[in-house]
């Protein structure tokens, strides 16, 4: 493998573009910094390696190879030149409801594959949904992923990038499920339709405010025992938006599209749609059909 150009640097890794010499295939090399972490290999690197080794799916980034060089761990990943965040932000790019449907279908197939392997992603957001040269969406960055917890395990609620964080996480839940990934997917869908972030909280506390102002404050009636969370008592109570308000907010959305979004953004995680319900929803059965990924500009 060659490393030709540095294209990014994160807290625990530097990413280079490169080529697989034997085939000429373009690849990305994620070089894990080992000196930064006093406890040996960084947890995010451990998770990326652990879960990407198990997942082979068209809509999940492929781990081509792994090797150690000069005491650095190198993940060789498939080359994915773009991502949904770039597409949303670049106003020169026009996309259609059929394009959005195609992106949502591919994203949910990737998420479903993780969930049926009992893996939570826990950081779904537009810039972790990469786009391959032939237009395929690929779920990437498994640095926060973990297996479904054993029943008695305590999970940290400090996961998922704030704007895409599910309400149960905002309340500090410790026994959450794959429903947190579905919430993130719902927020991404809203953002694709609006082309601006849907729930852009400035701080974790503000995120609670922004979320409930837009979607209504949950009550024990629609979300049993939500009042159990300590953070619940200080909440401002907002009414849920009427269907009419939602229609006005999401002008281009059909009734099924709104149902699809509301299914993913259901407050009560027990009632929130799971990946199968999303994939089998009427939204994907009605016109327009999802665009062919390779034709999307």
């Amino acid at each position, binding site marked *: 493998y060659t490393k030709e150009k540095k294209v990014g640097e994160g807290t625990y890794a530097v990413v280079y573009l490169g080529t697989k010499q034997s085939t000429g295939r373009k690849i990305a090399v994620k070089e894990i910094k080992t000196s930064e972490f006093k406890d*040996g290999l960084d947890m995010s690197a451990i998770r990326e390696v652990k879960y990407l080794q198990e997942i082979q799916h068209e809509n999940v980034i492929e781990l081509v190879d792994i090797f*150690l060089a000069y005491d650095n761990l190198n993940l060789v990943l498939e080359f994915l030149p773009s991502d949904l965040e770039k597409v949303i932000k670049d106003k020169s790019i026009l996309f259609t409801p059929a394009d959005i449907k195609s992106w949502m279908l591919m994203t949910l197939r990737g998420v479903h594959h993780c969930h049926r392997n009992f893996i939570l992603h826990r950081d779904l957001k537009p810039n972790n949904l990469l786009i391959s040269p032939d237009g395929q969406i690929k779920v990437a960055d498994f640095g926060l992923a973990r297996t479904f917890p054993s029943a008695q395990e305590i999970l940290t609620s400090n996961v998922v990038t704030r704007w895409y964080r599910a309400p149960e996480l905002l309340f500090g839940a410790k026994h959450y499920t794959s429903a947190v990934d579905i919430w993130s997917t719902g927020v991404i869908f809203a953002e694709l339709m609006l082309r601006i972030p849907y729930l852009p909280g400035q701080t974790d506390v503000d995120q609670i405010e922004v979320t409930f102002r837009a979607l209504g404050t949950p009550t024990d009636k629609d979300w049993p025992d939500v009042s159990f969370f300590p953070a619940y008592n200080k909440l401002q109570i907002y009414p849920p938006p009427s269907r009419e308000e939602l229609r006005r907010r999401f002008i281009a959305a059909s009734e099924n599209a709104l149902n699809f979004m509301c299914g993913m953004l259901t407050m009560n995680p027990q009632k929130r749609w799971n990946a199968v319900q999303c994939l089998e929803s009427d939204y994907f059965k009605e016109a327009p059909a999802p665009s062919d990924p390779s034709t999307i500009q």
Partner: protein
Amino acid sequence: FRHSSQYRFWSFTPEQLEQKRIRVNAQAVQSIEEDLRNFVADNKTDLNEEEIKTIEMKAVPVTAEEELKLINLYAKKVQMIAQRLNLPTEIVATSITFFRRFYLENSVHKFEPKAIVLTTIFLACKSDNYFIGIDSFCEKTRGSKEQILKYEFPLLESLKFSLFNHHPYRPLHGFFLDIQAVLHGKVDLNYMGHIYDRCKKRITEALLTDAVYFYSPPQITLSVLMIEDEALTTRYLELKFHGNNPDSSADAEETISQDNSVNISLEKLVTLIRDCKRIIE
């Protein structure tokens, strides 16, 4: 399971496994003998006859069988230390798994088992979301931080970077549920709970054997269940997998029809389980 790295990288036939161990040992022995020759050649002048003879007598590499005995001894130590740290059952299992796999790729001549023990437990904790900082880990285990971290990369590389393990404990829970459905009303739940605990312990013991390389986790679970209660397990398998059970009552018929989609041959399964059981015992 067939997509898992556990199946793709770490399942072997008994012959393949034996070949692997012989090859790892032979490679180590070869390099040691080469080093010895070079050492004696380089130090011809200052070594007297007596010393050279002593080297030839004493510096004899261990055989593959001896290696295996040493590895199994230390695998038990991994289990003991991990259990003494009160680590969850799954993490004890992962520690043992990492340790034993490491020595399918490396010889004890090259990496002394004692030096690897703590690194396998430390990495297992990290990998299974039970992170313990190196400082507190060293405090609890009186290990050396440098040594533990030094072996983390070699361990990871020898594991072929496959950290995700399917252990037989969840299948045990799964069969615990399914036995209740298939033998509904015919099993005493207290007794089942008792069996469950004994099976958990026996599964951890089974992870110290080569059964983990020859059989899938659920097959190991069924073998352990067979050891703990042959009658119950056989009855369950017969009802579940189309046994010719003479007194199959209506609901059993109904159960069988429900699982028509299960295309597992009872004959083949029971034979396989008995073979696995023998290895575990």
